[in-house]
């Protein structure tokens, strides 16, 4: 098993930023469905993929950091955690939405909306039940020693 870990104290993730991200994803995808605007799905896919490649450019999280947090509308929830699994989860969601967009372009809207709702379900599972399916996948791949999944879970006393 790969186990590249900086000291745990260096690894911090603001879970309020993650939840804001998930809320935007869910809200915009449901709005896209109601208004039947598939380009909005493509936009959410682009935000997720760009946010994975360039974390500082993650638009929905920027709303949290620049508007919600400074104004005290959402309190920070910083935890010792690895950011990589959450990035991977976002990448998986972005890829599903990319496939969804492709389905719309190919004029198969049932598949497009099906994939979009699947991402809504995954994001809702994360937001409301605290179950990050992408994170679970990441750590499983880490345990299997797959290259590129170098972060092992941070041990904590429970």
């Amino acid at each position: 098993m790969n186990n590249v870990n900086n000291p745990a104290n260096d690894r911090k993730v603001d879970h309020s930023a993650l939840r804001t991200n998930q809320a935007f994803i869910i809200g915009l995808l449901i709005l896209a469905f109601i208004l039947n605007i598939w380009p909005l799905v493509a936009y959410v896919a682009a935000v997720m993929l760009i946010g994975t490649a360039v974390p500082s450019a993650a638009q929905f999280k920027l709303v949290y950091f620049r508007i919600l947090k400074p104004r005290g509308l959402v309190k920070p929830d910083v935890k010792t955690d690895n950011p990589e699994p959450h990035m991977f989860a976002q990448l998986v969601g972005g890829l599903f939405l990319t496939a969804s967009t492709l389905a719309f372009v190919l004029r198969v809207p049932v598949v497009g909306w099906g994939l979009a709702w699947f991402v809504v379900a995954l994001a809702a599972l994360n937001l409301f039940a605290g179950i990050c399916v992408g994170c679970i996948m990441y750590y499983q791949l880490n345990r299997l020693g797959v290259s590129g999944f170098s972060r092992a879970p941070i041990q904590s006393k429970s």
Partner: protein
Amino acid sequence: MLDRVLLAAVLVMLGVIGWIAFNRLSVRRAAHTVAKNPDPLLAGLAEGVPVVLYFTTPTCAPCRTLQRPALNKLQTMLGTDKVQIVQVDATEQPDAADRWGVFSAPTTFILDKYHVPRQINRGVASFETLTQQLAQVV
């Protein structure tokens, strides 16, 4: 557009109902498993006292910062004659986690005084939630 709003509402409700049904199924499956063979996790527990079976992992931060304190408060407030708390490290006992259908931490099961699983909480369960659930199984 109204039809799509309704459809969206139906899909969301189906998702919520599906989640509730999945959790109920998990509890039934756990109850069935326990009924067939006494579970070693429950060995040595006092009879007639409800149990909170708590699955955790060493990497679970919410377990440490939220769930454990809630369970500690529960034990302090109710005492050992009203509730027994069994903590299970799912990484050390993966077979137990499989038997109980646990795939994330924290997960807590509420068992009644006959040690039959009656409720499941996937994710952090607050002190208030646990108290309410225990009141229902007494």
